[in-house]
């Protein structure tokens, strides 16, 4: 199975189109104004999908099986409260707090209308017919009842292509997610049909992602060594998104970041973003004395501590890539930023936007148990470079290449 960027772009448009239709139908059905949130193509491992899904909240889902032009499962997932509110609107009853037969069937109907919105959108873009099974209604807190019995959902270590979209009702708390798990075979056929150039061997992407996973682990270890704060990788995924979606997925609040450009095969940009509390915690942990800060800033020493941490994390992260790709990747000195989140990201997508429309984003979240440490890592390689690097990658090498934990930098720091 081979991927090429043009085809992934088509898939992306298909997901957007589907989300738009689904949102429109929800509005027509309930009278609530809706808007489409972020749409992503995720390459995620089974473990990550489950982890991401299981945020402790009760959920309700409506699932259908697809056949014909696209095979797989399409699942609309609401949090339970959102589903109950929608049901209240539909059956004009107040305070619905559990699902009886009537509310269950109302919820299923909404889910079904949404599912068919998505599916009609895909069928349009793919110019094919997709058949849909009767919907089933699911309640639960874990991923299991929703995805557990689907063959197409990946095992813990398998990388799956997953389509995710969000729709929100304007001015309300109602929001929900949509997942599409395509069958691998069906996906391969589609990819083959749509592919316009040689593209990337899927197994290479999978292999590279496994390495990137180790790179992320390295970053967490480095952070622990430098700050004494016990950190771990919370969530990690490889996204394929339109460039515009990248800053839009960053919190619209003041963040602290360290940014790099890297140069080699591949070249691109790397950003570490912390919320303000985490940044303060890091400065406290790394700078032994009380530091004078002006106003709400971090002071010169605070800034340089954060830059230093970023610098070493960047080396760890990129060394991992360079090792498996057997190339060298150099990175620039760190640039410190303390500003509105999206503003820190848009310069990067603007520069990439001169030559590409979409990007693979290696998106990682590192957190600490019981302490404030929340770091979002965005690694955004230049598309052509990444494609070339992956094509040169020897697949056998991935399992042989050891994880590189180089803490010499730390000693020299």
């Amino acid at each position, binding site marked *: 199975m081979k991927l090429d960027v043009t085809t992934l772009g088509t898939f992306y448009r298909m997901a957007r189109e589907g989300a738009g239709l689904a949102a429109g139908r929800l509005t027509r059905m309930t009278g*609530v104004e809706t808007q489409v949130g972020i749409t992503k193509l995720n390459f995620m491992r089974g473990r990550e999908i489950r982890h991401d899904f299981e945020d402790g909240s009760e959920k309700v889902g409506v699932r259908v099986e697809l056949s014909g032009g696209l095979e797989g499962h399409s699942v609309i997932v609401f949090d339970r409260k959102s589903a109950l509110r929608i049901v209240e*609107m539909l059956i004009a009853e107040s305070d619905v707090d559990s699902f009886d037969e009537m509310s269950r069937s109302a919820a299923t109907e909404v889910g079904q209308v949404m599912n068919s919105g998505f599916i009609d959108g895909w069928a349009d873009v793919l110019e094919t017919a997709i058949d849909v099974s009767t919907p089933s209604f699911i309640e639960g807190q874990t991923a299991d009842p929703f995805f557990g019995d689907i063959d197409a959902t990946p095992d813990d270590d398998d990388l799956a292509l997953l389509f995710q979209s969000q729709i929100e009702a304007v*001015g309300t708390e109602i929001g929900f997610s949509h997942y599409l798990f395509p069958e691998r075979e069906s996906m391969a056929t589609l990819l083959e049909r749509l592919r316009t150039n040689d593209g990337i061997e899927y197994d290479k992407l999978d292999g590279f992602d496994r390495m990137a996973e180790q790179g992320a682990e390295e970053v967490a270890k480095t952070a622990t060594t430098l700050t004494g704060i016990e950190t771990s990788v919370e969530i990690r995924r490889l996204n394929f998104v339109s460039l515009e979606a990248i800053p839009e997925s960053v919190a619209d609040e003041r963040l602290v970041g360290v940014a790099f450009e890297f140069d080699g095969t591949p070249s691109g940009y790397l950003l570490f973003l912390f919320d303000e509390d985490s940044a303060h915690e890091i400065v406290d942990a790394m700078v032994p004395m009380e530091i004078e800060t002006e106003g709400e800033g971090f002071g010169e020493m605070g800034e340089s501590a954060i830059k230093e941490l970023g610098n070493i994390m960047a080396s760890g992260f990129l060394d991992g890539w360079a090792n498996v790709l057997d190339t060298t990747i150099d990175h620039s000195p760190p*640039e410190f930023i303390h500003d*509105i989140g999206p*503003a*820190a990201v*848009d*310069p990067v997508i603007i520069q990439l936007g001169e030559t590409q429309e979409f990007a693979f984003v290696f998106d990682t979240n590192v957190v600490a148990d019981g302490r404030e440490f929340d770091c979002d890592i965005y690694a955004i390689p230049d598309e052509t470079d990444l494609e070339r690097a992956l094509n040169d990658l020897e697949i056998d090498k991935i399992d042989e290449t050891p994880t590189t934990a180089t803490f010499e930098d730390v000693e020299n720091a």
Partner: protein
Amino acid sequence: MKTYGTEPGIPEPVQVGISELVVSEGDDTLKSYGLGSCLAVALYDPETDIGGLAHVMLPDGDAADNSDIKPGKYADTAIRALLRRMVERGASYTAVEAKIAGGSDMFQFESFGEGVGQRNTEAAKAELEKLGVPLIAEDVGGKHGRTVEFTPETGKLIVRTADGEHGVTEL
């Protein structure tokens, strides 16, 4: 019980995302948040209260393939599309005025050349000049992000920054 639907009285600002443009009139508020090197271009006709906001990402649409599908992505095509849609809605071309904000250059990366933000600002100014639309106010450049809100009725472009130093500016 909480009511859903469009609640009267509290109009939510209309979000103008990256590469989007929105034309409106009256007291509708158009908002773009977290502009770094992106540029917000606001055009309005003070006589008819018709105006629009574009959240521009790149300078040159004439050189790109997809600028007809996504005119809002590029400074030149966004300005032309805003102007055309405003005129279609009843604005008078010769009365239209422009305000811009954004176009910062927060990173000094080698690959960025003279600055990605600066390129956007220059392209917007050149296009406005070409079309004869007067640029009556600007808050561009620097090393900080901006969030903007624009109301066609008043022509006011409110620019907020995250740091205390620059605060809130009204253009």
